[in-house]
């Protein structure tokens, strides 16, 4: 039967039925068109984003923190990548055997690990800063819900030797102490991110755009000389033990540039293992602890006296019986010296002598000098907790205070301030700023505090203090002329001076052309000796002798060789 003869075709249907079908079909088309319009026009942005997210990824590129180097580019702080292991507790359903295996690799107690996994959080760190190879072994276990991520750990190869200078960072790689904090802005890197396209196998096939370029943290080159730092550290440590001292500090400055070549505090700590860290160990005493300097302050008065033209180095001063009464108080010398010249007052460290000299000045003259030497204001090197000590306004000074201040009581300073102030004597009377960073060009001459002639005359007095008859013959170094001043100050406690001492010595060498300043402070030496000349001066000598040899500074005193020069000449 042919199609055309089909009896169905002869059937006449009502036209309403065909119209209904047409209508339904039209409605279908309209719905489709509407839907496609919606998808293509209104929802297109959303859909494209969804599509992109299937193949596009934004990956973070982490930036390392800059290194801290010493002046010879030896590493003092280096970041190396480590891993942090974290878990999604809900997903981490571990069999007991797996748990033990994981606990073993993490070097944790299985019970502790269980507790960490029992918390109802979506994210928990199991352990941070573990070595990459351990993390790789954990990853190889393919435990569910256990993941790792990259992070950095800071290592300090010189350990406790440079602890106070360098400081340390926290787990989040932010500086917490010392240079790490002071120069955090330079050291810290900025992590970047970029958008890429990955293929089915997870390989990057296209770099779409770089959203933020990562910036590696910049390296910081300190002025610190690791060798001198070690010398200072070992000498101070030895002195601390010998004198059973509570604390101590050493600062070494380069006279030519004002660079800090070494800075050591005791007690110290190991920055690589900070599990048991006490507040006392953390203190960067050279910057944050003030002390009454004692006699190391006297040379400033001598310099002022010379500068004002009221005294000359050989002007006689009567220190009489070593006692002097000002108002209700009496000043004592350790022994009666009788008539002394100004130079001898410094050499013998006579309190009475220097107090007499100081009373010939107006208080504001003295205040002006102390202030211009940088006392009473922090050095602003950016160190945390850096203080400026106390220097009260001249108006409030009573004569007794003016007298005691001349020998370093009733005023407080930090060790770094003292070391810096001695630059005026070691240089020709000008004061330059100190620098933590290596200075590649010598700084310009600083503010002239004293004339070059005054500085030279004070240098001669300070050399006398180290010679026999002075207070610190133990500061002598074979082969070099040394100049310096001792300080032995009683400590005030609750407004009363108690039988606790701060012994100090600040000096420079070679005296003919000063190259280094070494300032030593020993807090509460409690073995039998407590004088600066006995406690601090030997530390100074040890550091200075080694440092001058290290730097190859020419000697300015001929040595008496055992082997005669002639014998060597024949060999040459």
């Amino acid at each position, binding site marked *: 039967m042919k199609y055309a003869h089909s009896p169905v075709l002869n059937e006449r249907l009502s036209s309403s039925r065909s119209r209904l079908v047409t209508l339904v079909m039209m409605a279908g088309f309209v719905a489709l068109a509407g839907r496609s319009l919606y998808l293509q026009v209104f929802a297109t942005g959303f859909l494209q984003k969804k599509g992109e997210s299937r193949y596009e990824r934004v990956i973070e590129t982490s930036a390392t923190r800059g290194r801290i180097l010493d002046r010879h580019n030896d*590493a003092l702080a280096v*970041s190396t990548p480590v891993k942090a292991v974290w878990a999604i507790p809900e997903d981490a359903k571990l069999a007991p055997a797996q748990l033990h295996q994981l606990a073993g690799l993490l070097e944790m107690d299985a019970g502790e690990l269980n507790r960490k996994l029992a918390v109802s959080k979506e994210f928990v760190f199991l352990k941070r800063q573990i070595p990459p190879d351990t993390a790789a072994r954990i990853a190889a276990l393919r435990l569910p819900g256990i993941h790792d991520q990259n992070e950095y750990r800071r290592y300090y*190869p010189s350990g406790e030797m440079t602890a106070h200078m360098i400081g340390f960072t926290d787990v989040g790689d932010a500086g917490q102490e010392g240079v790490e904090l002071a120069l955090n802005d330079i050291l810290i890197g900025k992590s970047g991110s970029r958008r890429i396209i990955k293929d089915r196998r997870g390989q990057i096939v*296209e770099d779409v755009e770089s959203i933020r370029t990562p910036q590696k943290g910049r390296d910081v080159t300190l002025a610190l000389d690791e060798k001198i730092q070690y010398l200072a550290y070992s000498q101070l440590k030895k002195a601390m033990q010998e004198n059973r001292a509570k604390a101590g500090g050493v600062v070494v400055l380069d006279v030519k540039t004002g660079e800090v070549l070494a800075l050591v505090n005791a007690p110290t700590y190991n920055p690589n293992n900070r599990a048991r860290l006490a507040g006392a160990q953390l203190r960067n005493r050279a910057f944050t602890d003030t002390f009454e300097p004692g006699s190391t302050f006297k040379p400033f008065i001598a310099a002022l006296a010379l500068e004002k033209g009221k005294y000359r180095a050989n002007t006689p001063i009567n220190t009489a019986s070593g006692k002097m009464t000002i108002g209700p108080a009496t000043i004592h010398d350790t022994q009666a010296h009788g008539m002394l010249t100004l130079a001898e007052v410094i050499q013998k460290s006579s309190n009475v002598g220097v107090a007499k000299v100081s009373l010939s000045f107006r208080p504001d003259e003295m205040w002006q000098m102390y202030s211009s030497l940088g006392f009473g204001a922090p050095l602003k090197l950016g160190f945390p907790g850096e203080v400026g000590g106390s220097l009260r306004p001249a108006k409030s000074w009573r004569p007794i205070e003016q007298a005691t201040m001349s020998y370093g009581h009733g005023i407080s300073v930090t060790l770094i301030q003292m070391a810096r102030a001695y630059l005026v004597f070691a240089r020709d009377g000008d004061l330059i700023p100190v620098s933590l960073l290596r200075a590649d060009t010598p700084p310009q001459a600083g503010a002239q505090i004293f004339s070059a002639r005054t500085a030279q005359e004070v240098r001669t007095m300070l050399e006398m203090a180290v010679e026999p008859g002075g207070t610190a013959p133990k500061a002598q170094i074979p082969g070099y002329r040394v100049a310096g001043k001792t300080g032995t100050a009683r400590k005030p406690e609750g407004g009363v001076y108690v039988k606790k001492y701060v012994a100090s010595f600040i000096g420079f060498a070679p005296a003919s052309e000063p190259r280094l300043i070494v300032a030593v402070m020993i807090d509460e030496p409690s073995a039998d000796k407590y004088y600066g000349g006995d406690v601090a001066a030997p530390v100074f000598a040890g550091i200075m002798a080694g440092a001058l040899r290290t730097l190859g500074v020419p000697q300015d005193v001929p*040595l008496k060789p*055992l*082997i005669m020069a002639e014998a060597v000449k024949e060999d040459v």
Partner: protein
Amino acid sequence: MLRLNLLLLLIAVFCALGTVSANHKARKLLAEYERAQNHMHDLDVEWGQLQLEQSTWANHARIEQVARDKLMMRAPGAGQMMVLEAAR
């Protein structure tokens, strides 16, 4: 007219093939670049570790200890030193 069209078609086909091969090359180079960058990062890490190792071995405390205890060295006394003047 037909010839021109054929020529244009041919050019179009060549261009298309060129695009494909250029894309392929770009991907290969990118993969290589990626590998090189990873390598650089690894070397950076290794360098840091070597620096640490060097600093640890060259630690002044260690050097002094080895010099004193193992090599039996000591600093010469003042009398045992002689300063040579620089030749003029």
